[in-house]
């Protein structure tokens, strides 16, 4: 029987993208479907720590060993996504001395290079570290950019023949045959998974393969459920129980990089104990609270206050620093049915491969749950091995040796910078963002103005991102970091839309602009005090006062524009559109050569007193 694809991967986070890359490189025909854009789920909402394993060196040594192994691999294959910042476990006087020793010992047992620093040595490395810190352990933690890494995986998968479909939501799992259809029973034949039904959504030009709202069946020999915190919902569609326990955590983004090293608090476990430097910012985290729905949970102010207050004990200037936004993610935690932890912080960070044939009698599908971003490649390798076993494919995993696209020629980055005569820090940052593609992207003949001043993103980069991700400006933002700095898009959302307008109709451009503004606002809202509140006020002046976008006669969020003929602008309005009676307004003084309509000129002459009632 012929199927649309050999393997269908559900979910475009790090796990799904990693599996797609691995299988494609082994010669398997893979299709990946993702309901949003890539990194839409937890992967786009994580802390960006490339674990050394130090955090698990006491509590979970198996994870710790995997982390250090993968940490080395990623620094090698994805050097353009990793910043080798190093990390510290800093101890304050009130923190337990024996735990410090256990941590050091644990690191050594797991093969994590670890060194003890005195408080003074630690402050030489990180001048803003609190005076109270009496000692620290240094480990090879790093900062990793999940957006670039996932995109690089997807590009490599595509280069090896995979099909990546974003804005494509799985709405049903197709099961054929099967004697016993009641979920929960642990044996009996539940039949074969033969594919899924998807529904296409609007959102991103190039990557939309079907028309919005359209449904389609995609059949496959084997389905990999890599939907993370959503894995239970896919399980429900297939009639099997996948008990993911989603747990939310906050991350708070500061306006500058107060630390250049990852700073961890050296104590057993707890919330709000880590600062990760990331590009031009530092990100504080996090909390750990179980939630029932991974897509709809409260984002609470106390969480933001908690991370700032707690981390101020390690890095006192954080108390005075400017916060630009906060965001939340949900961990796809899983524990086998028999454990039953009460506190989500007790749930293991390990990952589980659930073979539904073995577990539930449902052939043709496995789910992958739990785990960490840092170990995504290793997880993908294990799943791919398993899938290849099922399909009888022999192919060797090459993902640990072969560099990801963009990282092949690190030395060429510097050369590219000189070639294009770009001024620092733009070239440096563009080079870092683009990896070895810098030369292609930045080689424009015309002017290349800066679109986003906060993050120094040029028009060429925005254009390139549009070529790659279509009309979805949030996807463009993720690729380029444009609109992610201090002003949170106040000055550049409309500029990004302007770049988009070169390739898309006005209504599509306007809709993408609205989505970007709305998305920026969602995160910005969690940092609204001090300078960031003033920034929000300035942004509303720019968008509402200068541009009147809140009362746009053409409305916001137009959807009908895509297909309409040029010039057929009437179809390009959106909700909130109004008909304005232009003739009722001032059409200018005759002395300026205006051709006022009759009505307006009548209104003008009669009551035109320049001196009012003074």
């Amino acid at each position, binding site marked *: 029987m012929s199927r649309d694809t050999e393997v269908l991967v559900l979910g475009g986070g790090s796990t799904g993208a990693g599996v797609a890359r691995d299988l494609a490189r082994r010669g398997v025909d893979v299709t990946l479907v993702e309901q949003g854009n890539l990194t839409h789920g937890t992967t786009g909402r994580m802390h960006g720590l490339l674990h050394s394993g130090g955090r698990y060196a006491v509590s979970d040594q198996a994870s710790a060993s995997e982390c250090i192994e993968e940490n080395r691999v990623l620094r090698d294959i994805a050097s353009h996504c990793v910043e080798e910042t190093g990390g510290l476990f800093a101890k304050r006087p009130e923190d337990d001395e024996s735990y410090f020793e256990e941590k050091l010992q644990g690191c050594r047992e797991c093969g994590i290079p670890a060194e003890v620093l005195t408080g003074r040595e630690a402050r030489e490395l990180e001048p803003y570290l609190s005076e109270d810190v009496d000692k620290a352990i240094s480990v090879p933690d790093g900062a990793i950019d999940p957006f670039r890494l996932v995109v690089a995986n997807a590009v490599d998968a595509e280069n090896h023949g995979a099909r990546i479909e974003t804005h494509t939501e799985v709405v049903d799992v197709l099961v054929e045959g099967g004697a016993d259809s009641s979920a929960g029973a642990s044996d009996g034949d539940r039949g074969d998974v033969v594919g899924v039904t998807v529904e296409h959504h609007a959102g991103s030009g190039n990557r939309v393969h079907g028309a919005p709202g359209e449904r389609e069946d995609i059949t496959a020999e084997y389905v990999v459920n890599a939907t993370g915190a959503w894995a239970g919902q896919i399980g429900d569609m297939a009639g099997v129980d996948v008990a993911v326990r989603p747990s939310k955590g906050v991350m708070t983004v500061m306006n500058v990089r107060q630390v250049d090293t990852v700073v961890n608090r050296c104590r057993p476990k707890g919330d709000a104990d880590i600062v990760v430097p990331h590009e031009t910012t530092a990100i504080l985290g996090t909390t750990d609270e179980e939630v029932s729905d991974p897509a709809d949970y409260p984002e609470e102010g106390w969480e933001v206050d908690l991370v700032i207050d707690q981390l101020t004990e390690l890095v006192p200037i954080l108390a005075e620093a400017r916060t630009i936004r906060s965001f939340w993610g949900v961990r796809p935690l899983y524990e086998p049915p028999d454990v039953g932890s009460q506190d989500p912080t007790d749930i293991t960070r390990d990952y589980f491969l659930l073979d539904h044939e073995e577990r539930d009698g449902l052939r043709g599908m496995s789910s992958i749950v739990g785990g960490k971003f840092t170990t995504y490649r290793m997880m993908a390798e294990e799943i791919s091995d398993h899938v290849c076993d099922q399909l009888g494919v022999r192919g060797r995993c090459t993902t640990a040796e072969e560099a990801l696209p963009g990282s092949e020629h690190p030395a060429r980055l510097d050369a590219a910078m000189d070639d294009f005569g770009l001024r620092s820090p733009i070239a440096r940052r563009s080079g870092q963002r683009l990896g070895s593609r810098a030369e292609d992207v930045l080689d424009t003949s015309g002017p290349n103005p800066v679109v986003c001043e906060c993050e120094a993103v040029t028009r060429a980069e925005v254009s390139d991102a549009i070529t790659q991700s279509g009309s979805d400006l949030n996807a463009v933002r993720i690729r380029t970091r444009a609109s992610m700095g201090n002003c949170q898009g106040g000055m550049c959302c409309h500029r990004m839309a302007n770049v988009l307008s070169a390739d898309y109709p006005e209504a599509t451009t306007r809709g993408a602009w609205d989505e970007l503004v709305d998305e920026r606002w969602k995160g910005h809202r969690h940092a609204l005090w001090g300078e960031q509140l003033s920034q929000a006020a300035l942004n509303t002046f720019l968008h509402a006062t200068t*541009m*009147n976008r809140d009362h746009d006669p053409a409305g916001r969020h137009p959807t009908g524009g895509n297909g309409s003929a040029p010039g057929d602008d009437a179809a390009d309005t959106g909700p909130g559109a109004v008909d304005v009676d232009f003739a009722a*307004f001032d059409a200018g003084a005759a002395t300026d050569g205006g051709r006022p309509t009759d009505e307006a000129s009548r209104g003008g002459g009669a009551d035109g007193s320049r001196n009012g009632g003074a």
Partner: protein
Amino acid sequence: MAIRDDVLVVGGGLAGMTAALAAAREGASVRVVTDSESTLQQASGLVDVLGYPTPHDDADDAGNRTPVANPFDAVDALPDDHPYRLVGVDALRGGLSVFDDATGDLYRGGHTERNALVPTVGGTVKPTARYPASVAPGLASDDRTTLLVGFDGDTDVDAPNVAAHLRAAGVPFDVGGVTVEFPGDLDGTDQQTRLAHALDTDEDGVRRRLAERVKRSPKRAGDDVFGEGGDADDGAAVDGFGDVDRVGFPAVLGRARPRQVRDALAERLDAAVFELPPAPPSLPGVRLRYRLRDALREAGVAVTTGNPVVDHDVEPTEGAGGDGAENPAPRITTIYADRNGTKTPYEPDAVVLATGGLVGGGIDSERDAVYEPVFDCPVAHPEDRYDWSDADAFGPHAFARFGVRIDADGRVLGADGAPLYANLTAAGGVVGGYDAAAEKSASGVSLATGYAAGRTAVAAASSSHPTPTDVTADR
């Protein structure tokens, strides 16, 4: 020795300058003490009075989203504690007259009570009451065929996109857009100023070259406003260019000699020429600031810039001691401005607070408090920080209304509803109770409250003089 004036205005934005001019009209000696830049460098240069009196009421009722043609008539629809309702329409008219006198031929709109609809760089139209002369030929209620011109390398204005957006907005004229390369170097910082300077001095014949590029510019697909044909290389004007009645540019058409630049381009293009009110940094805003500074100088107002007010002394009014409502409010006696680390004292008779809102620095906040930093005037705000803003980017944000409360004379009120000081009034962004961005009322409120605050300050000052002047008399 402390510096003495009748009226000291703290803050040199539009509201502070209006208050100073209104007070000087009454014959008072006036000084403006201000920290550096005001928001005028960022502002589009338009003076909005009132476009949407009920912007956040029932969204299904299109009336709430449709601009009002006559802002004065719409004031009654505002809530009771809105600054316009407090100081009254007469103060608004007074403020506008101060503005019109000061700006002269730089501004238009005073010939009518009606709002004008001005095309914005965002592709919408906006209701406004006064607009720069450079913007005047571009009004949206004028049905002349329009070509918008953008410069490659200027990321703020994409002319074809603005034109398409205006068509979607239903403007009553044909409009198209083209992008041309500005003749000359556009890279680097401070673009607006450099382009304006080149046009001012007409270096390398830049006015002629720009006009030629516009005439020869190829059309963009979809802009079938100008007929067929047109090619940048063959040197001929685009077919149908002759049908263009007016040409709009980004707001860079000269800083020192804007009129001359527009006239030169208009002559070569054989069309009216106008500017689109810009995103920051804004040359029309800068031109307005210079014009108002000149007006202050002519009115004899002293201006001290770069000196934030950091401290003040208060003294109860002599003879105080009654109780209840009879107890007169205390007076501010001394104001201290910081000048390179040393405190300079001023001893004015009356003080106008015009330090701006959240953007200008007149209102500030911490994680759990919103405050007015100079005199610590009470600023009402919701307890929970999450109630300071709305979940919708353009929703009814509480922060938009943050500010001090005033009475009908512009006096700052304390938490008990009585004047906080006998000689303190407030104007502009620092005043609360209105949503400037959603209503399109920012500058209008600055003019109305500036007018009221300036005149009341003179009255308060003269009541402390031996020979009071009658401020209510007509000039």
